[in-house]
C-alpha cells in the first residue's frame, strides 16, 4: 500500500491512454511523458502498459506501507527518500514505512512514479488513466488527495529478479549500480527547440505569420495544462476567412483559434477540433514538450513528416535496446550485487 501524505499540485494515475473510444467523444488522457512512463515500468519489471503516478510541478509526499520496488523518471523534483536524495531513472527498493518526499521540480514539469507489480486500479474502458472531468478511471476518477491509499499488485517474476539484483546502499534503500545513460537523457530532454511538421492548414496562414512561427519565441501561458499549452507571442494570422469543418486532432496538434494565439493539444485534448492546424509536434519531442513549465519559452524548428517518422522509429529501437539493457543488468546482478 502507498499512503498519500501530501498529494502535491496535481498527481494522477495515468497509463498510455484510453484508446479506441475517441469515436464516442471519449478523450484518451494518458501520461504526458510517455518515454518516462515506459522506462519507469521497465526499471521495476512491469509491462510498459502499466499505470504510474504522474506528478506535476510540486510533487507529493508518499509513505510506503510495505517493501516495494519503485522508479521515478522524468523531471528532477529533488526527491528525498527518508531524508536521503533519491536517485532518478533507477530501480529503488523502498522499505516498509519509508517516506518519499518530492519537492518542486527544479528542471522540467512532470515525473512518473512506477511501482513493481503495478497499481491495483481497475481499468475503465481498457485504461487506468484518470479522466478527471468525467470522473472515471484512475483513483476514484480524480487526482490524488491527502490520505488516499493505493494498493499495489503482487510483483511479477521480473520485479522479484530486479529486487534480487540490487546493491544494498545506505540504510534506507537499495538501488542499482547502473542507471539510464545521462547522456542519452540529455539529448532527449535538453532540446532548445521542439521539432514540428507542417499542419493540415499550414498554407492558410500568412507568409509573415509562418516566418514568425519558425523564427520567434513563444511562451507557455499560465493557463497551460494537460489539455494543451496555450502560447503567447506573435499573433498568427490566417488569410482564409471561412471556418473549417471540425475534424480529428492528435497529441501534438498545434491549432490556432481566431485570436491568433496557438495551442498545442496534449494528453487531455478533445477528440475533434474546429481550429486550423498550423503544425504538428513530432512524437520524438513529446517527452521534451511534456517537461515545459508555464512561463517558459518555446521555439519550433521544421521537420519533414518522413524525417519525423524516421526519428520515431529510431527512438522505438532505442527504447527496445534500453529495455534489453535493463533486463541484461538484472540477469547479471541476480546472483548478488554486480
Amino acid at each position, binding site marked *: 500500500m502507498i499512503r498519500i501524505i501530501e498529494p502535491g499540485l496535481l498527481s494522477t494515475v495515468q497509463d498510455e491512454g484510453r*484508446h*479506441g*473510444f*475517441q*469515436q*464516442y*467523444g*471519449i*478523450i484518451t488522457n494518458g501520461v504526458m511523458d510517455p518515454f518516462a512512463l515506459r522506462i519507469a515500468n521497465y526499471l521495476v519489471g512491469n509491462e510498459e502498459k502499466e499505470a504510474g503516478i504522474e506528478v506535476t510541478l510540486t510533487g507529493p509526499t508518499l509513505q510506503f506501507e510495505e517493501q516495494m520496488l519503485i522508479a521515478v523518471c522524468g523531471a528532477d523534483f529533488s526527491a528525498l527518500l527518508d531524508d536521503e536524495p533519491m536517485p532518478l531513472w533507477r530501480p529503488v527498493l523502498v522499505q516498509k514505512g519509508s517516506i518519499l518526499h518530492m519537492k518542486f521540480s527544479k528542471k522540467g514539469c512532470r515525473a512518473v512514479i512506477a511501482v513493481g507489480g503495478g497499481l491495483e486500479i481497475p481499468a*475503465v*474502458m*481498457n485504461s487506468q488513466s484518470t479522466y478527471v*472531468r*468525467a*470522473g*472515471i478511471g484512475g483513483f476514484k476518477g480524480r487526482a490524488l488527495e491527502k490520505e488516499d491509499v493505493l494498493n499495489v499488485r503482487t510483483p511479477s517474476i521480473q520485479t522479484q529478479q530486479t529486487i534480487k539484483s540490487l546493491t544494498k546502499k545506505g540504510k534506507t534503500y537499495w538501488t542499482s549500480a547502473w542507471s539510464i545513460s545521462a547522456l542519452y537523457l540529455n539529448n532527449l530532454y535538453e532540446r532548445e527547440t521542439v521539432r514540428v*511538421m507542417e499542419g*493540415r492548414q499550414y498554407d492558410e496562414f500568412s507568409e509573415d505569420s509562418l516566418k514568425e512561427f519558425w523564427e520567434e519565441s513563444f511562451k507557455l501561458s499560465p493557463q497551460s495544462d494537460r489539455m494543451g499549452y496555450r502560447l503567447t507571442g506573435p499573433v498568427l494570422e490566417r488569410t482564409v476567412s471561412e471556418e*473549417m*469543418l*471540425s*475534424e*480529428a*486532432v*492528435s*497529441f*501534438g*496538434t498545434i491549432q490556432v483559434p481566431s485570436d491568433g494565439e496557438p495551442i498545442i493539444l496534449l494528453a487531455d485534448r*478533445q*477528440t*475533434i477540433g474546429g481550429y486550423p492546424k498550423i503544425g*504538428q*509536434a*513530432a*512524437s520524438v519531442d513529446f517527452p521534451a514538450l511534456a517537461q515545459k513549465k508555464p512561463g517558459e519559452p518555446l521555439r519550433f524548428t521544421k521537420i519533414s*513528416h*518522413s524525417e*519525423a*517518422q524516421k526519428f*520515431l*522509429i529510431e527512438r*522505438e*529501437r532505442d527504447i527496445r535496446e534500453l529495455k534489453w539493457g535493463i533486463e541484461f543488468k538484472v540477469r547479471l546482478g541476480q546472483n548478488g550485487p554486480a
Partner: protein
Amino acid sequence: MNYSLEPLGDQAILIEFSQEVNEWIHEQVQGVKGRIEEMGYDWAIEVVPAFASIAVHYDIRKLLTCQSPYDLVAKELSLLLDSKKTFTKKASREINIPVFYGGKAGPDLDEVAAHNGISAEEVVELHTKAEYTVYMLGFAPGFPYVGGLNEKLATPRKSKPRLQIPPGSVGIAGQQTGVYPIETPGGWQLIGQTPEALFRPMNEEEPTLLQAGDKIRFYAISEEEFYERQERNK
C-alpha cells in the same frame, strides 16, 4: 469515390471526403469507418470519424520494420477506398429522447422563443417534430453533433457561457442542437433536460447512448416524469 489522404502528425492519417456536411457524405464516412474496423488492420489503434473525414490512429510499434509507416498505411487504405464506388452504412438506429422542456430544466426556452418571434410552445413543437441525424460525437463523451434543426429555432450562443451546465441539458447554439452528457461549462441556450444518461462508462460495449449515424427524436415529458425517470436512472 473522392477522397484525399494526408498525415495527421506522425502517428495518424486523415481521410478527407469533402469540406461539406450532408447526408450522403455522412453515409460514406460511416460506411468507410465500418469497413476499416472490419478489416482489423493490426496497426490500427482507432478510427475517429468526423463530419466529412476519418482519422485513423496507427501504432508505430507495429510498423517498425517498414521504410515508411505512413506510406504503408496510406497504401492499404487506398486499396480499401478504391475497392468500391460507394460505401453503405449499416442501418441507422432510431433513438427517442425524453425531454422536460422549460422551467428550471430549460432556463433559456423563452429567450429562444423571443429571438425567433414564436411562443415557447412552438419551440417545443418544432424541436420535437424533427428527426435529427447524429453526424459525430465530440466535445464531451457522448455529445452528439446533429443535423436537422428547424431554422426557426436557430439562436446564437449566450454571450457569457455558463460555468456549470447539468448533465442531460438540451441546448441550441446557432444551427445546432445537442445534449450535454456530463457537467461542463458551455454557452448553449438551454431549452430543456433529459433524464437519460448519455454517458455510461461502465457499459464498455456502448459507453454512450448515442453513436454517429443514429437518427434521434425528442419528445416532451412532464416535470414529474422527469424526476421519476432521473431517480430510476441513478
